[in-house]
């Protein structure tokens, strides 16, 4: 006795149970009325929506629990539209469920596989037609066609070339030059060291020359964060220490991981945190990465004071700012 035979038998589709609406005409009438009411409600809500659109000014607010001060125009327009649609849907479904025939129907499936002779027919047709076209014999045509088709896709690809310029050395460059003043962002005011107390930060950008404009692409590479600590708090090598001025240290604000603005400075721990992926940098140790996915410290901008007493860059950044890329050398 095999397993198959002793399996529990399929008792077949259960007998159809009549709904109340099938046997009781009163129930059917009631269902019809319910559907009609749903449709009427929908129409009423459409009127609410249109009324709100035309007559409720969009600067009127009222207080609702949980939602707080709510815009009457937006809320009633939306509610009107939402319930107008919902009630049409509910009405249709209720109609289908209560009044349309609910006897389950059985449809047979047919095997997708064609009969063997049809398949054989198909294969031989392909063979005959391909043979007639000489596909099997004329391999030169096949190969050259393959070549032509394959290579023709290159033209549209090549034509995408003018989407943008070549990167060249663009990713390495910023607007910082020797002697470029640090100015506040926003405000564009130059900064003196004595303007910053210990524990202070300032968001800075390079000063613009006369008539120059600053683009977002510039900000995306030039943005710098200025932080003042006690000079004794630094744990820097001699070179990096010489890049600071009297406890003031400057870092690129563009994250070395994925380019978000790293400006979240904790005064007590002297840590900088990037809110995008939570890389944490230690300011006292030249922005060394102490947590998170960033693999490199933030580039440090060497600063000094010019003859007028304003903070300026000693030199351009010595490495590319922002996220890594293939051509980056360190």
């Amino acid at each position, binding site marked *: 006795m095999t397993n198959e035979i002793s399996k529990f038998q399929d008792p077949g589709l259960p007998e159809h149970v009549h709904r109340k609406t099938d046997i009781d005409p009163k129930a059917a009438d009631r269902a019809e009325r319910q559907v009609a009411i749903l449709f009427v409600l929908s129409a009423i809500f459409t009127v609410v929506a249109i009324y709100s659109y035309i007559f409720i000014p969009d600067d009127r607010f009222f207080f609702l629990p949980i939602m707080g001060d709510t815009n009457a125009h937006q809320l009633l327009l939306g509610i009107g539209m939402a*319930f107008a649609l919902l009630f049409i849907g509910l009405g249709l479904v209720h109609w289908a469920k209560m009044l349309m025939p609910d006897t389950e129907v059985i*449809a047979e499936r047919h095997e997708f596989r064609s009969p063997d002779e049809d398949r054989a027919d198909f294969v031989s047709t392909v063979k005959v037609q391909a043979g007639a076209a000489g596909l099997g014999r004329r391999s030169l045509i096949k190969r050259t066609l393959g070549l032509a088709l394959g290579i023709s896709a290159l033209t549209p690809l090549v034509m995408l070339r003018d989407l943008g310029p070549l990167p060249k050395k*663009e990713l390495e460059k910023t607007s910082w030059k020797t002697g470029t003043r640090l100015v506040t962002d926003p405000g564009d005011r130059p900064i003196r060291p004595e303007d910053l107390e210990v524990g202070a930060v300032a968001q800075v950008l390079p000063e613009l020359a006369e008539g120059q404009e600053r683009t977002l*692409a510039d900000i995306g590479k030039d943005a710098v964060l200025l932080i003042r600590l006690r000079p004794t708090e630094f744990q820097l090598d001699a070179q990096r220490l010489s890049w600071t001025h009297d406890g003031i240290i400057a870092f690129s604000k563009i994250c070395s991981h994925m380019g978000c603005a790293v400006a*979240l400075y904790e005064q007590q721990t002297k840590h900088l945190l990037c809110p995008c992926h939570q890389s944490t940098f230690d300011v006292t140790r030249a922005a060394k990465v102490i947590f998170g996915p960033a693999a490199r410290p933030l580039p440090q901008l060497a600063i000094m004071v010019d003859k007028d007493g304003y903070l300026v860059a000693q030199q351009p950044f010595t490495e590319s700012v922002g996220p890594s*890329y293939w051509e980056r050398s360190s």
Partner: protein
Amino acid sequence: MKKSERIAGNVAGYVDDRTGAAKWLRKNLTKVFPDHWSFMLGEIVLYSFIILLLSGTFLTFWFDPSQRDVIYQGSYEPLKNIEMSASYASTLHISFDVRGGLLMRQIHHWAALIFMAGMIAHLMRVFFTGAFRKPREANWLIGVGLVTLGIVEGFLGYSLPDDLLSGTGIRIAEAIIQALPVVGSYLAFFAFGGAFPGHVFIPRIFTVHVLLLPGIFLALITIHLMLVWYQKHTQYPGPGRTEKNVVGYPLMPIYMAKAGGFFFIVFGVTALLGAVASINPIWLYGPYNPGQISAGSQPDFYMGWLDGLVRMAPPIETHAFGHTISWNILIPGLIIPGILFTLMALYPFIESWMTGDKNEHHLLDRPRNNPNRTAIGAMSLAFILVILINGGNDIIATHFALTINQIMWFTRIGVIVIPPITFVITKRICLSLQRADREKVLHGRETGRLVMLPHGEFIEVHEELTPAQKFTLTQHEQNRALEVPASDANGVLNPQGLKGKLRARFSQAHVEQIPAPTESEAKALEGGHH
């Protein structure tokens, strides 16, 4: 004949005279669809796609996809006279100076979230019930393609307004492109027309967002539905339901009314969300500026898992021969998602290879009856959930008094430990459920009623299942593991090699199950009682 009937007849005649479609139409109007709530998930996706097309078209009437600088002069006071891109300004215009514009924007965004959530729920339903098996592998592939494109389309959509949050998202996308070995910086410069953010990216992705991707969606969805139509829908096992039939309701009129009604319901729920709940309040974010950032910058949920993965990545970069490879970006940003989506796309073929099952399947599995697959699904979900949690770790930290460092370490370890544990537990649960089914079939359902026997013993009354219930619980196939021949006809040892062994091992894991009780077993038990 009534007048309306006559008119209908005339119209039908007119169409048939010119197309000969009467026979085809008659057949298809009575097409049978099985009824189950989980079969509506795909419809939610289809309908939210239509809502997206409608609401999106409305938005394009005012949206200006341009990164040209403008000074905002609209009615939202806190941004007056601020310099911003035209796309941000026009989004503000839609929100505050077009009546119903904000509602439509919110409907569009909520519909996008429902679209993605619905796709994921639909995908889970198809996976856990085995609906992807032969002959539906192609539709599974199309589905995986749609999910992938949906993520891209959603990302482009929330990038368009050019606010501080979306600009941050684009910044991160640019960093991923830039991290590609060899071609990265070139591709980035081509895509952005120069250094980030440039002035051309938003107009470009606008075309992709409103034309190219919706076109591909429309084509793929059409094929997806035509295949469902042609191959007929799968159905859950039960009395009267076999591999050879489909039991349900005819398209006309029931399914038309229900499906049509459900479209209005999905639209209504989306509009309700748009009316009562604020989404993406771009006016609060401010215009994009690469020097600014907000605490708690996250993408929408369908990208959140990716962000969580990037957050937990180890800080590894290789610097050699004057070149840099950012593993901390490539591994979480491209390699792991690439592997995940490839495995997901290939799963039907992998499963069929593991089980050696080449048969057509139209009856769905109850998830418990395929413990291995269910456990694989649960494991994958656990993986995604763990990294999704890390994607919101800053919000979770502030709301539950935790630290981002704790959550980061919990998820870094959890992403390796939790999925295998989930696999084992899920498999155990499935087998226990199978055992419970077996108990129920053989000994009846526990009623919770206690009865005292004449000699004072208490027993619980067990109620015997109906034949229909017994059938439903025992109809599933009992799989047999593949066997690897130890040696082939020529005496060569282990002819299939390591691959064969691996396959046999997988196959064994796959068929692990509690034998379904048979009628003869039940009879034998009954005999014992009397």
